[in-house]
């Protein structure tokens, strides 16, 4: 047993509040415990964040010394014709992901919350795709999206006399196809969050609504949805933040094609930094990363103001 490094006067009462307890004034011990965090966060979180800011105003590659170029990187990103395409595609992806990925989990969760026996089975089924590694899901769905008449989806469509559809091979349908896979892969997590919120609605509220003679539809509209409003808004924000950073799916499905129809902002950052035949343009990549981060920060702030306004009004 190690020795006590610091003797506390015996008269001091046992501290009951959740304040600091003075175990040791020996800063060295505390520092030893903080060291792993300071080293790891310092090197791999705090330092790179600062470095991103610095790099965005530098011309940086691994060969020559970085030079200060002001806002040149930002200007070059904005002048890049691919930039507009990537922003439009990412917005399109987010919108589609919202159209597919917002109502489906709500409906599923409401239906599942009314299941009285075996709800665990429903939840497990809904969540299962979430634990499949994204790379596996994408590669698997590439077979589903095979554009030949013998592709999986085209076979199923053939049964009802439709198709074959080109899926990933046409500029028009490539992005919706990616969104469908991404919804399949991610919706389960949202369902579980909604389900937890729905189960936490106090039963007394429904009892009161019953006394007032409310119909089932009225109960959903006037009790259930208002109660899970903040959770809905939270997942909406999380979903938008996640979809703005979509990467693995477009990279592995289409590499941004056909015709840059699925080139997203993250894919463009990746191209700037790692797929550049002239060597990585890290300055441009950092500039675009910061622009995306700033956009998401504005978004997050807006969310906080909105929830504050709501919580004070109701």
């Amino acid at each position: 047993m190690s020795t006590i490094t610091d003797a506390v006067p015996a008269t001091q009462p046992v501290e009951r509040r959740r304040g600091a307890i003075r175990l040791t004034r020996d800063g060295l011990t505390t520092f030893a415990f903080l060291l792993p965090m300071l080293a790891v966060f310092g090197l791999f979180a705090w330092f790179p964040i600062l470095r991103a800011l610095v790099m965005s105003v530098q011309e940086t590659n691994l060969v020559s010394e970085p030079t200060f170029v002001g806002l040149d990187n930002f200007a070059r990103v904005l002048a890049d014709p691919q930039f507009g395409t990537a922003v439009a595609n990412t917005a399109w992806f987010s919108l589609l992901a919202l159209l597919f990925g917002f109502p489906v989990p709500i409906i599923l969760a409401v239906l599942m919350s009314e299941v009285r026996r075996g709800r665990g089975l429903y939840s497990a089924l809904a969540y299962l795709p979430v634990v499949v590694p994204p790379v596996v899901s994408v590669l698997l769905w590439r077979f589903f999206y095979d554009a030949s008449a013998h592709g999986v989806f085209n076979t199923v469509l053939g049964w009802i006399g439709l198709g074959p559809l080109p899926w990933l091979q046409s500029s028009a349908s490539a992005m919706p196809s990616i969104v469908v896979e991404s919804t399949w892969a991610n919706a389960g997590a949202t369902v579980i969050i909604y389900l937890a919120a729905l189960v936490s609605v106090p039963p007394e509220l429904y009892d009161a609504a019953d006394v007032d003679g409310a119909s089932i539809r009225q109960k959903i509209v006037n009790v259930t949805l208002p109660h899970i409003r903040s959770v809905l808004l939270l997942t909406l924000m999380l979903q938008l933040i996640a979809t703005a950073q979509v990467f693995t799916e477009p990279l592995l499905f289409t590499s941004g094609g056909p015709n840059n129809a699925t080139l997203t902002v993250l894919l463009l950052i990746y191209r700037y930094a790692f797929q550049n035949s002239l060597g990585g343009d890290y300055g441009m990549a950092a500039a675009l990363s910061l622009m995306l981060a700033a956009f998401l920060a504005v978004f997050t702030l807006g969310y906080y103001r909105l929830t504050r306004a709501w919580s004070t009004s109701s």
Partner: protein
Amino acid sequence: MTALPWRARQPRVLRPRVDADATERGIVSGSDWRQRRIRWVMRSLHIVTLLFLLIVGLGPLLWMIKSSVTPTQDTLRAPMALWPHGIDLSQLATAWSRTHIDRYLFNTVVIAFGSWAIQLIVATTAGYALSVLRPRFSGLLTGLVIATIFVPPIVLLVPLYLTVVDVPLIHLRMIDSYWAVWLPAGASAVNVILIKRFFDNLPREIFEAARVDGAGPFRLFRSIVLPMSRPILGVVSVFAVIATWKDYLWPLLVIRNPNLQPLSVRLPTLQPTTDLGVFIAALTISSLIPIALFLLFQRLFLNGGGLSGAIKG
């Protein structure tokens, strides 16, 4: 050391009710349930929901498992047919040995294990220091940790890569070393905050008692705080392993040697040169461990309120 009744006092942060459905009611009331029409509608809705989950949610995975034991030609000609020419288990064996899925799976396990260890070491020591030892700057440090949650990971991608290429101060090149994956995984603010919150809720009287009995800070950490924190350590562990398993972009960038790459990085490059049936068998093998972990620790995943609630606090 006197026996302490801490087992009875474990904070019940991670046990929200989920199977309390027998005792509570939902939107549809008991009297609604007694109406035959509503009962009929609800039952059919449940069946439709279950069918939807089975076909849409589970269906793609079942197809993957089916095709991993179906000869390639059958899958190509009739992807939806059920074994027109019998089952071919040899594809699984071929994927395992000839395609070297065994090696890549081992790489993934090593990467996951290391990331898990680093995450636990960083999060428990930091949580202990910030919650129990409380140095003078602990508030500021906690703030700096929380701040990183609000920085989207994409901002870190390029500077983190350059850091790994040439680690500052020690000028080490970590490309093709697993440390390049393990150490950045440790910088997880969510882990530190989760564990700190949990430590905050441990009863201080026990620390006092241990101190009176002569336990120093290291002893307190090892013999009291860690054993009392098994629930939260379990949560962090499972999520650490699953997250590492799912990771693709970062190992793709920093592990260049194909013999060292994990499954997720190897699979896309293997596809063009691999027989279709064998490749789908490889996909199935790659999903087995995450799915097994999920089935084993379902409660951790599905009581999702536990995790998000703990973060929001």
